[in-house]
């Protein structure tokens, strides 16, 4: 039997700020445990939360980037539960009035465009991290209180690919908007997956299974695929799917039951009394809106429609906002978009990847690239030489024009100078001219080679070839 798969995601992402969500402790990745903590993070008696407005601004920015409705007032709620990773015994989060609701984001799934509906996005604080050992557990409170944005989608995805496409797009938005580094390897981005299967065409959703805290996109994909397989087999065997929370194990690529959900846990939410409601003025929201850069999806569309660049190249260029901005600057300076795309995707990005450096540190400015491209277009150097020049530029941190001068590779496009040399060579090779006229076309390459030799490679090869043909015709 065939089934419709329905997937919803809850994605936690740490927000990049100087200090924590409700305390002046540093929000910094820290090797040393329990180094960034104050009495507030550890909930000593009498401490009070102080809202980090940088985090508020960034949360509003993210809500707007996800096309969400932003409330007129910012509230926080308490989510009450006991766990040692939660010093206060409650987490300050947003339940009644999240910073963003009813949004969407368009993503590419292969060549198709898919609209992912966002239920809400809310601002909260992270918990401490726990390491469990056989007879004891270690608690690191560095993470306790780090601002966290949780994005909750509607159950609107139907495959692992769609889920992955969304996660990737979401991650890029976080990075593009400078809200988070969104590094999964540091646990900055973590994902809960809700998945259900229903008979194909069914109007009601199947029983929901939740998979908690998956820490890499590859694991999200593997977990979804495993779960689709497991549930399909179970349903085909006439078994009932139980509403439960499962844990994905990336060692054997399977999911395991953690707990059965009879009723949802009651977190006894209520409005946090220590934080007065904060009015999000229209101007404030508008101002934040104006700081949102053009996002990946829109950029890809623009490159494809306005610059006639392939989707593949466009996708490669927009991956990093700085690269996209570099690219756009180049176009602004008048470099042909396709030529520019070639330069960026093949030469520049390859170099950056190899040297593991950001484009900001690239010595070759868009203006320099323009000069370099113009030299090729004007026939003054070959494409191959341009590439050599590029490597010299980034190696020696010198202007490409200087490098060209130093290398002495500027091609001679002086018609009469080349013509004189050609004449001299032809004069000494009457026999070969005959052979050429007789149909041995590779003789032309020999003559070109002779001219190059004579000019130490500085003659423009295309021009040389044309002149040779013209001079042979005359004889």
């Amino acid at each position: 039997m065939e089934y419709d798969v329905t997937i919803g995601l809850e994605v936690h992402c740490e927000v990049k700020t100087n200090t924590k969500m409700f305390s002046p402790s540093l929000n910094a990745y820290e090797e040393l445990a329990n180094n960034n903590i104050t009495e507030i993070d550890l909930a000593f008696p009498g401490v009070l939360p102080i809202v980090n407005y940088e985090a508020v601004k960034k949360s509003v920015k993210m809500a707007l980037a996800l096309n969400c409705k932003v409330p007129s007032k910012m509230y926080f709620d308490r989510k009450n539960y006991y766990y040692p990773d939660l010093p206060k015994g409650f987490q300050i989060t947003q339940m009644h009035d999240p910073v963003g609701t009813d949004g969407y984001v368009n993503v590419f799934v292969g060549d198709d465009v898919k609209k992912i509906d966002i239920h809400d996005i809310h601002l909260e604080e992270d918990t401490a991290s726990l390491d469990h050992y056989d007879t004891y557990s270690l608690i690191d409170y560095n993470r306790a209180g780090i601002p966290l944005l949780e994005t909750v989608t509607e159950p609107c995805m139907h495959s692992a690919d769609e889920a992955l496409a969304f996660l990737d797009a979401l991650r890029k938005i976080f990075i593009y908007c400078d809200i988070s580094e969104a590094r999964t390897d540091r646990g900055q981005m973590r994902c809960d997956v809700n998945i259900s299967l229903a008979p194909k065409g069914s109007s009601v959703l199947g029983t929901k299974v939740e998979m908690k805290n998956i820490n890499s996109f590859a694991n999200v994909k593997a977990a979804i695929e495993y779960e689709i397989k497991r549930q399909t087999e179970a349903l085909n065997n006439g078994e009932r799917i139980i509403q439960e929370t499962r844990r994905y194990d990336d060692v054997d690529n399977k999911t395991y039951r953690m707990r059965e959900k009879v009723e949802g846990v009651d977190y006894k939410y209520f409005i946090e009394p220590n934080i007065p409601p904060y009015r999000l003025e229209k101007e404030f929201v508008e101002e934040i809106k104006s700081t949102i850069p053009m996002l990946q999806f829109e950029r890809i569309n623009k490159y494809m429609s306005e610059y006639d660049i392939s989707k593949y190249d466009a996708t490669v260029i927009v991956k990093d906002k700085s690269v996209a901005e570099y690219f756009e600057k180049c176009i602004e300076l008048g470099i042909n978009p396709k030529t520019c795309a070639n330069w960026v995707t093949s030469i520049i990005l390859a170099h950056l990847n190899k040297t593991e450096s950001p484009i900001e540190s690239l010595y070759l400015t868009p203006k320099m690239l323009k000069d370099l491209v113009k030299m090729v277009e004007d026939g003054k150097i070959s494409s191959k030489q341009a590439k050599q020049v590029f490597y010299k530029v980034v190696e020696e941190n010198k202007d490409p024009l200087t490098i060209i001068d130093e290398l002495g590779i500027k091609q001679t496009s002086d018609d009469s100078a080349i013509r004189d040399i050609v004449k001299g060579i032809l004069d000494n090779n009457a026999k070969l001219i005959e052979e050429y006229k007789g149909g041995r076309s590779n003789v032309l390459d020999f003559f070109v080679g002779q001219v190059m030799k004579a000019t130490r490679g500085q003659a423009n090869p295309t021009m040389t070839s044309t002149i040779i043909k013209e001079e042979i015709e005359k004889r």
Partner: protein
Amino acid sequence: MIEKTIEELRKDLDSKKITSSELVKESIELAYKYQNDYNSFVTICDDAAINEESKGALSGIPCAIKDNMSTKGILTTASSNILKNYVPFFDATVVEKLKKAGAVNIGKTVLDELAMGGTGTTGHTGPTRNPWDKERLIGGSSCGSAAAVALGIVPFSIGSDTGDSIRKPAAYGGIVGYKPTYGLVSRFGLFPFACSLDHVGCFTRSVKDAAIVMDGIKGNDKRDMTSLPDTNVNFENEITNDIKGKKLFYIKEIADRKTYEDDYDEELEQIITNFEKVIEDYKKLGATVEPISFDMKVLDAIYPAYLTISCAEATSNNSNLTGIIFGPRGEGESIEKIMFDARTKGFSELIKRRFVTGSYILQKENQERCFLNAQRVRRIVVDKMTQLYKTYDGMIGPAAGSIAPKFKSENVDKLSKRNLILENYLAIGNFGGFPSITLPCGFVNKMPIGLNITGAVRKDLEVLNIAYALESIYPYKGQIAKEVK
């Protein structure tokens, strides 16, 4: 010497008639002298930092601080076993401000466990007794702070007030108890009971002293987001007893003998008679006093709404007390069991009952019926008061429905109107964050009784003036419990 008011002590200190170290020494001696009989203190600071340099009104003046205010390096227990060995490493803002003003903390005072209670009998070090009559309680939760001032150990003390925890003990102790506008004094470092209702305030033996203390501890605090912006007001300089033309009101049903038909006695008759005299005295001072009728249903709902909101917030606020990061570590095989054990052993039955109640109130299926309805009552009361404050400068009423009860009192759990309304309506001040003061206004059966004045938000000066005016025509200013005199 120490039995004088702050105002008088200031003059003596400035004229070198006395030194701060002499005052502090006297305070500490008295603290020890009365400790056995009255149990005001959890900790007496033998090594209190003497301050001889004059830095302002409170400089060099001894004081006592309720043991639910965080004091750096000084045991702070909240009178609970779960914090019995807790020594904070930071000062509450109010403590910091007192230090800056040069006041000398000579001890941490007993409270009802975690400030939850109104009897002053539930602290982990035992009950606090009333200096006017040892057989009676002083009320709570700021019992030790009230007793220390009524005993004349210190001229002022710091308390906290969530329902009436300053204003009720002040009435039972024949002293002044003041709870300012919510946000005027920072709550940073106050161990929370119910943060939307919690206030830091003070006990003194004169209204002007309350103004002086308030000048020292008020002020915006970046560490408390509910703290109010600073204003230029100086209560000590601006306080006046000229209240001609001021408009006062009282709740008609509260002063009406008929309200209490089911629980009426001679004591209550005297309290109401006294209140009627206060009304006449205010009229003599040039103020108008009018009765305002409240819906009985609203009055009946104040105490249940208060209990509902405060228990709900309390159960959440005290969830940090698990023995994991601080406090006595519990035993058990799992983390959950360790926390469970610490809390089982650390709290008294009364506290557990409040937490269970609070937890019940916050459960999804009960929130609408319990928690949100209580919030609606709160809103109705605050709206009504705010509306009245457009016309009136203050509300007056008896601070309590009886004199300080004896320890084994029978009528505590009786759901009479007297208990339900008269004994608990001061929570109105906490609902709206209204400034509210209690000052002595007479005696019934040789025990002091108090008058309460509650004003509009941020009209602290107005409330102090109204109290100051009455005090100036009454003989109770600066009084110390007769039993110890």
